[in-house]
């Protein structure tokens, strides 16, 4: 009986690696390097920018980089859940903007002119941001599953509508009277100025999301839906309900990003989340090695993908390169990520 339990190959639910017999050393190399090549790119970029502009290794550069990274990372975590099921959420940025504005207006109203209900304003304001995000996610999920409209179309529609909604909430204006707690959340630093609450929130979210995806029933089913939806249905999984929850998680992450970004900017702005945010969230997931067709991907990969984008954002500025090059560079990395993944998968399977 050749059946044996190999501890080595128990890695992850959806990402188990295994040593296949009969592969050439070249295929083997591609199969192995493929998993880590994005980490190599990240290290390379940090070294490259550090050589050109030594200020790359200063606290100021770190704070700038982590500032970008935190927002993209939180959005990209939600996007990872969606992409793992084979879907896509184009509305993560717009949802963040809308939730932030809605919560900030609640705070503004409760604080009033004389700085009134601080605690209530914090709780209800933050609560509004999270609930608004989840509600938008639920609407996306319901339309996608019940009306059977592709996620791309649905979230393209909600993205556009929500951006308009954000402007309508406050006539396109800005809200700056936030609760004291929000201002503390956004401005305090610790560990000698190297850490702040947004970074902690983003790291915590990454760990929780990673455990949730690889260690729980929900995570396993998420991979299975993206891998073979029919198989998931035949296994008795309520795929529609699962997908609605997935889009709600994505919405919740947009809500968390709204809290963090509003706190960091000390204001809610109608233009928040209307730029490249959603594209960078998707790009982070894809650069991180997830398959756009679902079934494959990791939070660690998304983390690396986000870091690459954030390092490019700071590094190109420090290296005195016109910021427009940033988008060119990210675009090239996205395409190479998918191209290399293709070769890797071809080499690694069947």
């Amino acid at each position, binding site marked *: 009986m050749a059946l044996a339990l190999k501890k080595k190959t128990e890695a992850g639910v959806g990402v*188990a690696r295994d040593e296949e017999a009969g592969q050439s050393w070249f295929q083997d190399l591609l199969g192995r390097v493929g998993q880590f090549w994005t980490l190599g790119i990240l290290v390379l970029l940090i070294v490259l920018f550090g050589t050109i502009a030594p200020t790359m290794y200063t606290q100021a550069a770190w704070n700038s980089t982590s500032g970008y990274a935190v927002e993209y990372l939180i959005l990209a975590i939600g996007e990872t859940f969606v992409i793992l099921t084979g879907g896509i959420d184009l509305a993560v940025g717009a949802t963040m903007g809308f939730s932030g504005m809605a919560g900030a207006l609640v705070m503004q109203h409760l604080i009033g002119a004389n700085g009134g209900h601080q605690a209530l304003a914090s709780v209800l304001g933050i609560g509004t941001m999270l609930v608004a995000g989840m509600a938008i996610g639920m609407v996306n999920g319901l339309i996608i599953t019940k009306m059977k409209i592709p996620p791309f179309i649905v979230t393209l529609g909600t993205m556009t509508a929500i951006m308009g909604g954000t402007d309508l909430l406050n006539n396109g204006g800005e809200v700056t009277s936030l609760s004291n707690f929000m201002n503390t959340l956004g401005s305090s630093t610790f560990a000698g100025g190297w850490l702040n609450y947004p970074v902690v929130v983003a790291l915590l979210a990454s760990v929780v999301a990673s455990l949730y995806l690889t260690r729980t029933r929900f995570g396993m089913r998420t991979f299975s839906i993206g891998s073979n939806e029919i198989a998931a249905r035949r296994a008795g999984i309520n795929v529609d309900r699962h997908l609605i929850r997935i889009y709600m998680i994505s919405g919740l992450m947009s809500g968390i990003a709204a809290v963090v970004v509003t706190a960091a900017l000390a204001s809610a702005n109608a233009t928040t989340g209307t730029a490249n945010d959603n594209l960078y969230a998707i790009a982070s997931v894809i650069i991180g090695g997830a398959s756009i067709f679902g079934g494959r991907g990791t939070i660690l990969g998304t983390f690396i993908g986000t870091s690459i984008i954030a390092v490019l954002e700071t590094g190109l500025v420090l290296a005195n390169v016109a910021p427009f090059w940033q988008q060119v560079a990210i675009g090239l990395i996205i395409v190479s990520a998918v191209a290399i993944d293709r070769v890797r998968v071809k080499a690694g399977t069947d």
Partner: protein
Amino acid sequence: MTESESGGVRPPGAPIIEAKGISKQWGSVHALHQVDFNVYPGEVVGLVGDNGAGKSTLINIIAGALHPTTGSIYINGKEVNLKSPTEARDAGIETVYQDLALAPDLAIWANLFLGREIVKGGILKWFGWLDRKAMIERAVSDLERTQIRIASVGQRVGRLSGGQRQAVAVGRAVAWGSHVVLMDEPTAALGVEQQARVAELIRTVAGNGVPVVLISHNLPQVHEVCDRIVVLFRGRIVAEVSPKDTSIDQIVSYITGSSLPTPSGAAAATAE
């Protein structure tokens, strides 16, 4: 139809699964017409017929994927109303689908337990925390029991060969199917050696007491593996024979409708 009318083809004892008077109609199309189909403990039943004869319709009704227009299904003598494949599975009816229904990105053990995951107890249960160790161990022993040879249950299914995938799908059905395992063309995509291995597996399963219903176009295999062969023709059962005293050519003639079994046979009565 009674035992004596079936010409002694059926094993003695009470059937595990009984489908009585099953008809399925789509508009004016009669896919199945008053079909009686029983499955007895430990037997391998072949279900054969030309395309459109009603094999898949009958299997899908037993698997809970379709609802009969008329007729009822009994498990161990108790009438059941299978509203979905999930209900059928809960009732101990497992199906191996032609497309295998495996998630290629998941490990073998995860595919075996998909939809029926073992979770840890205590507070971790609330989070749906997987008990991987328990599932991996059970996957190993389940596959061992069916004598399926796979290097590691931690392998992704996408990395397996066609035959190995087939084995995983069959192994899953066997591990969970307490009453019957339905197999729809289980060897269609396989090479000769792998076909033989699946045939062996089917015999092992039936040998453990769980009956197998085998739908296949591969008549030599059906003839070799099955204890009993039921022939469908245009939605009716036209023959129910033992491969021991029926040649493949005879079965082919029943399938094509060019001849019917001798009057002593069960089916003649139904077909007339």
